[in-house]
């Protein structure tokens, strides 16, 4: 338990730093952004208490907000994503006693299920995030293009990240 707390603490800091220092400055085709830090929410073990999950999600979003001058935006999106994590997970996985405390990854869910789960999470995040940010400023087509492009970009990067560091 202590070991995994330590690992997730490092993951939190590392993902926030990577996001703030590198990925915030990469915008492909002027519309695709990568929100790699949601990998933290995606991969938190399922036996984490709901209140703790929400708190960690909110803090993650708030930290990213502080570093990218978007007050409230990522905090809101991360909180919503944290709340939707369990329903999305069980949309693709059976309720199973053996899988009660796993951390979602290719290694624990199988590639296909994890790919579906991850894609849904990325899409949900981008939908909440972009609709909140651009509500007053852009037309719907523009927002949808940004959501689509960013979902794919985020999805691919996290899938690659998972195949590198994800484990049982």
């Amino acid at each position, binding site marked *: 338990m202590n070991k995994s707390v330590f690992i997730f603490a490092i993951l939190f800091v590392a993902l926030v730093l990577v996001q*703030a*220092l590198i990925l915030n400055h990469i*915008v492909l085709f002027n519309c695709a952004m990568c929100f790699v830090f949601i990998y933290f929410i995606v991969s938190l073990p399922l036996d984490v208490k*709901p209140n703790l999950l929400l708190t960690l*999600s909110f803090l993650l979003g708030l930290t990213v907000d502080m570093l*990218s001058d978007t*007050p409230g935006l990522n905090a809101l999106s991360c909180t919503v994503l944290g709340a939707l994590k369990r329903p999305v997970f069980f949309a693709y996985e059976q309720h199973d006693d053996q899988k009660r405390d796993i951390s979602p990854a290719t290694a624990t869910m199988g590639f296909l299920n994890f790919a579906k789960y991850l894609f849904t999470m990325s899409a949900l995040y981008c939908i909440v995030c972009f609709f909140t940010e651009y509500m007053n*400023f852009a037309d719907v087509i523009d927002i949808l293009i940004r959501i689509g492009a960013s979902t794919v970009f985020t999805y691919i990067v996290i899938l690659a990240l998972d195949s590198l560091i994800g484990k049982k």
Partner: protein
Amino acid sequence: MRNLLNFLIKYSTWFVFAFYVLISCILLVNTSKTHLSVYLSSANAIGGTIYRTSSEITDYFGLLAVNKRLQESNARLENEVLNLRNQLKQYDVLASDSSDYGRYRRFGYIGASVINNSTSHPLNYFTIDRGSTDGIEPGMGVVDQSGVVGIVDVTGKRTSRVISLLNQNQHFSAKIKSTPYVGSLTWKGSDPRVAYLEEVPRHAKYHIGDTITTSGFSTTFPEGIDIGTVMGNIKTNDDTFIVLKIRLMPDFKQLGTVRIINDILKNELDSISGS
């Protein structure tokens, strides 16, 4: 009482969720410059340190381009100094007994480096490595070697957050160079190279390629700092005003060194216009 407690515990997840969503929404809506905003911006101690450290490392990669731009700007300034010196010589007699002489020193400049920058949001900000201890105050204008880039928003001790010109909530007073026609410059999102000059009188004369400069009507920027060039006008239904499309001069994706403008007369002018 026990029922209430049971109820709270049973539905605690919902309360926690609602609480965090509420906080996020307050932060989203609350754009005023509260005391709290210093801690929640990239100008706070942690963000400042992180960006300062990273820019100390990555700055080296851009030195060649920065150096080239500085040399160009230096050459231009040297020419200008020579020209102005020649002009000044002609006015020497007048200037020596003119009480107006002091106004040539109205604006001071403070140099700074951009340590974090964004161009992809509708509301963009960037962070500089100077703060209140260096004399930076909210409301000061920020320029780079090619022109206007923003206005200081929040100041931390050693870092400050600047509202970029690429921010849809920020308007700049600008005019067509060497004419009296003034308009309001705004950015409309998407392209970081293009902005729009609104509320220009319909009878204003302009040509494609004309320079747009600051109007000098505020204490933020002196008159005549370059902003961009006219690309053309946009069709509107308004009979009295036209909108001009402007190509911005600074390259916002490559902001390196900037200068913050300190208006020595700011307090005086503000107190006059405020009374």
